[in-house]
C-alpha cells in the first residue's frame, strides 16, 4: 500500500507491505537530512530506465508492480545476508528511477565480496536477487543497472539478462599430493580426515575399508596421493577427494643417519650437476 504525506516541506511516501520490513521512499532533500543525522550512508543502487505506459520511469512515474517485485528481491537479499531486526532503508532519486538501498553493513560486505570474486555461484542470495531482476526486466522491458559506490557492477537488459551473470565454476578432475596427520577415520562410507601440513585445513578423503585398516590415527604422518575436483579459475578450491595411494613418512631421522643410508646409492655419480642435467635434459637417447 502506498500512502502520501507531507512533512517539513518535502513530499514523502511511505510504503508498508507485509513483506517489506521498513522501506521508505524519500526525496533527495530528505536523504540529505538523513545523511546529516549521522547515519552511515553505505549504498547499493538499482537504476531503472525505460518507458512504462508511454512515459519514462522516474520518481514521479514509478511502475508499481515492477517496483514491488524489485523490492521483494531486495528485501529477500537483505534478509538472507543480515540479522532479522537490522533496519534497512531505500530512497528514490531522479535520473530515470534510481533506488538507493541502505542495507545493513553485512549485506554490503556480502555484495562487495561477490563483486570482488566476479563469478557468483548459483546458490547465492545475490544470484537469486539478480535472477529476479532479470525476470522483471524481461517482463517489463525495463533496463536496470546495479551500482556500488557509483560504479556500475552489473547491467540487466530485457534481451541479454545480467552482465555479471552467476556462473558455475568449471571443476576439473585432478590428482594432488597431501601430507599430514589423520585426525579421524572410518564410517559407513569410509573416509579419513587429514589435517594438512601446509594449509592446516582438514581434507575428507573417501577411501576403501581395507586400506583404512592399514592407517593409524594421530601419531603417524602420511603423504597421500589423491584424486580431487579442482575449480579451474580458483585452484585453491577443492572438493570430492578420493584416495589413490599413500606413503608413510618415517619418524624423524638425523642428517648423519640420512647420509649413512643414502650415500652408497650415489657413489657412482661423479658430478651432481651433470647427472641432474642429464635427467632434465634427456641427453640419453632413450
Amino acid at each position: 500500500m502506498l500512502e502520501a504525506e507531507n512533512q517539513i516541506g518535502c513530499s514523502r511516501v511511505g510504503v508498508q507491505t507485509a513483506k517489506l520490513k521498513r522501506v521508505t521512499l524519500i526525496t533527495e532533500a530528505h536523504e540529505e537530512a538523513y545523511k546529516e543525522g549521522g547515519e552511515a550512508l553505505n549504498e547499493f543502487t538499482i537504476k531503472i530506465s525505460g518507458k512504462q505506459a508511454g512515459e519514462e520511469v522516474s520518481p514521479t512515474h514509478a511502475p508499481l508492480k515492477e517496483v514491488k517485485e524489485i523490492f521483494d528481491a531486495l528485501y529477500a537479499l537483505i534478509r538472507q545476508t543480515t540479522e532479522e531486526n537490522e533496519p534497512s532503508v531505500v530512497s528514490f532519486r531522479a535520473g530515470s528511477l534510481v533506488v538507493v538501498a541502505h542495507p545493513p553493513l553485512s549485506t554490503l560486505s556480502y555484495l562487495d565480496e561477490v563483486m570482488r570474486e566476479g563469478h557468483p555461484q548459483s546458490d547465492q542470495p545475490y544470484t537469486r536477487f539478480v535472477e529476479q531482476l532479470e525476470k522483471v526486466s524481461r517482463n517489463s522491458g525495463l533496463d536496470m543497472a546495479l551500482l556500488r559506490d557509483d560504479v556500475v557492477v552489473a547491467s540487466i537488459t530485457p534481451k541479454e539478462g545480467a552482465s555479471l551473470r552467476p556462473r558455475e565454476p568449471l571443476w576439473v578432475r585432478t590428482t594432488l599430493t597431501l601430507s599430514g596427520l589423520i585426525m579421524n577415520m572410518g564410517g559407513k562410507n569410509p573416509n579419513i580426515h587429514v589435517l594438512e601440513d601446509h594449509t592446516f585445513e582438514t581434507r575428507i578423503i573417501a577411501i576403501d575399508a581395507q586400506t583404512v585398516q592399514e592407517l593409524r590415527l594421530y601419531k603417524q604422518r602420511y603423504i597421500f596421493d589423491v584424486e580431487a575436483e579442482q575449480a579451474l579459475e580458483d585452484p585453491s578450491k577443492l572438493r570430492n577427494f578420493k584416495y589413490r595411494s599413500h606413503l608413510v613418512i618415517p619418524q624423524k631421522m638425523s642428517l648423519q643417519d640420512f647420509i649413512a643410508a643414502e650415500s652408497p646409492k650415489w657413489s657412482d655419480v661423479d658430478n651432481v650437476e651433470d647427472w641432474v642435467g642429464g635427467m632434465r635434459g634427456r641427453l640419453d637417447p632413450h
Partner: protein
Amino acid sequence: MTRIEFPATCLVDTTALIHLASPKQQYHSNALEYFQAMQAQQTKFYLSTLVIAEYGFKGGRDGVASVLASLSARVCGFDMEAAFRYGTLAKQHPGIFQMTTPEKERVVIDLMLVATADYMGLESIISSDTNLCGPFLKGTSRAILGLDIKKPITGMYPLWSSEES
C-alpha cells in the same frame, strides 16, 4: 660477520639433496652446513614431486622416505595452480625459446620448480644450480631467496634474491 636471516620455508632441489647425501661430492660440506643451520632455525622444507622423481631414480622409495624423515619435508606436486604460475613465469624468460632442445628441457624443469615455490609462497630455493638460485627467480610474484650451496654459508651474505634482479 653479517648475520644471515634464514628463510622460514625452502624448496629443496635435487642437486642440493644429492650433495647432502653423498660425502664424496664437492659441495657436500656446504650442503650439510646449510641444512643444519636451517634445521636449527626451524626452516620448513618442501619437496616437489619433480625432485622426488629425480632423487627416486637412484634413491628409490625408501630413499625418498629418508629425505622426508630427515628434513621433515612436505611434498608439493606440480598441480594445476603451479602450472598456471609456470605459464606466467615463462613469459618472463623469453630466452627459453631460443635455447637448443636439451638445454630448454632442463630450463623448463627448473622453471617448474620456481613456479611451485612461487605459488606455494615459499621464501627460498636451495640448489647447487647457480641459474636456479639466480636468474630463474626473475618474475616471481614475491621475492624468493636463492641459496646456492656452491657458496659456503659462512660469510655469504647477502644471498641472491629475486627482489634484487
